[in-house]
């Protein structure tokens, strides 16, 4: 047996936008084991729910993460609405879907750019983020904020988007979709990309299920699991099926995200076509009493919100199980046996969002 050495990876590492630390136990160039440590950016946001008004808490929930911001506030609001037994207007549900899918495209484009940067494809990274910039402008036009949407509230949404603005949105998204196809072709076919992604970090289907992988990590291993199938918000009215890839390697996870971008464009189109007229928010009466688990699909996978209210305006307990946390055990599994230069790519392909995971 060769001598084992430990290489520290992170919390500050060129490919990691956020701090996570891995102790890589190495045998020559092979990783034998990866030991994670997290807790560098714990902010105590869950505890804040005990101090803040439950309606104001929607803003804090949105700030759990800067990338999947909208879906965080949407999940929190859905959980509170369920406890309050509050029926929100249908138009608000459709608007939530539209913004949620825009948030998903933005997150996936960000991830694709970071991945291209991680394997040293600088021009692809720049072009991916050029497209993301266009999308951020569209988000700002419809919601008022670029990254923090600030439009979701308990009882619905805070602003309406008129028909004219929706048409403009569709036209702009059609252009963006064509641009995305050009980028997708590079990710799917380019030889240099394939060399860095194909056959790397394979997560077999059984392992993915056993270790509780979620989101594109799970779907990249061929499991058609997507929380949007629960039909929350307006997803029950839309026609779609989860995107899956069979290979389970880094390329499969990349392709799943690529195809999900296309799917999100389609979902936005369907939602705009079916959006009913009417109010966008319902009046909130009383304070939450009771508990509820809300499950939603974030760009990174399934997220679970638990809220427990005691009839006052402060919640008794607020808990979030984020997709990155669920994806850590599969990550540690696929790191075993890989080569050292592949570690950054493998870590990136679960799309780690550490500020979500630690809150």
């Amino acid at each position, binding site marked *: 047996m060769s001598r084992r050495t430990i290489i520290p990876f992170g919390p500050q590492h060129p490919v990691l936008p956020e701090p996570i630390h891995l102790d890589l136990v190495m045998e020559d160039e092979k990783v034998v084991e990866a030991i994670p440590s997290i807790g560098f950016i714990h902010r105590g946001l869950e505890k804040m729910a005990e101090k*803040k008004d439950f309606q104001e808490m929607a803003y804090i929930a949105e700030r759990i993460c800067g990338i999947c911001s909208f879906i965080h506030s949407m999940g929190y609001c859905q959980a509170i609405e369920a406890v309050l037994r509050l029926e929100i207007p249908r138009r608000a549900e459709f608007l939530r879907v539209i913004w949620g899918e825009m948030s998903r495209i933005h997150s996936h484009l960000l991830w694709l750019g970071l991945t291209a940067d991680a394997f040293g494809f600088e021009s692809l990274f720049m*072009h991916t983020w050029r497209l993301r910039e266009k999308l951020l402008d569209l988000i*700002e036009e419809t919601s008022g904020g670029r990254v923090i949407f*600030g439009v979701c509230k308990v009882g619905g949404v805070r602003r309406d988007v008129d028909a004219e603005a929706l048409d403009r949105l569709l036209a702009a998204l059609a252009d963006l979709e064509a641009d995305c196809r050009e980028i997708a072709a590079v990710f799917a076919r*380019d030889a240099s990309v394939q060399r860095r992604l194909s056959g790397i970090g394979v997560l077999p289907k059984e392992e993915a299920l056993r270790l509780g992988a979620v989101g594109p990590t799970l779907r990249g291993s061929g499991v058609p699991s997507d929380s949007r199938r629960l039909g929350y918000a307006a997803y029950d009215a839309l026609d779609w099926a989860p995107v899956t890839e069979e290979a389970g390697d880094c390329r499969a996870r990349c392709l799943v995200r690529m195809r999900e971008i296309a799917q999100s464009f389609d979902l936005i189109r369907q939602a705009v076509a079916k959006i009913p007229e009417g109010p966008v928010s319902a009046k909130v009466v009383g304070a939450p009493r009771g508990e509820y688990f809300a499950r939603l699909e974030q760009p990174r996978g399934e997220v679970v919100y638990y809220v427990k209210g005691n009839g006052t305006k402060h919640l008794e307990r607020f808990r979030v199980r984020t997709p990155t946390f669920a994806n850590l055990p599969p990550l540690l599994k696929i790191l075993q046996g890989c080569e050292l230069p592949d570690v950054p790519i493998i870590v990136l392909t679960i799309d780690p969002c550490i500020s979500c995971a630690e809150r």
Partner: protein
Amino acid sequence: MAHLTISKLLAKSAAKKPATRRYPAEKRTPPKGARGRVTMKQLETCVFCGVCGKKCPTRAIAVKRAEKTWEIDRLKCILCGECVEVCPKDSLTMEEEHAAAFVAKRIESHVQRPQPAPPDPP
């Protein structure tokens, strides 16, 4: 597998003008409805009811009725726009242009001057 798949895209973008803006020569105009900054537009109509301060999730706004002052700490403000929505007199507005960066912490204060007494009825 194909080689140089990005070359078409690169050639296309080389022929186009840059995707980025030539700041500061060319400045960005924020879209309509963007949340840039909260401003006290009409101080004379403000009744200092303090609803904006109470509704503010970060307590960035302080209203002192006795001194007739309305203050905002821009570093605390998260631009949610709740204050603008609840203002009963529409004294507050949300501007699209964001506040300029500043070098020191400060609280922006607006003091209402005594209003001229209404003319005596004849």
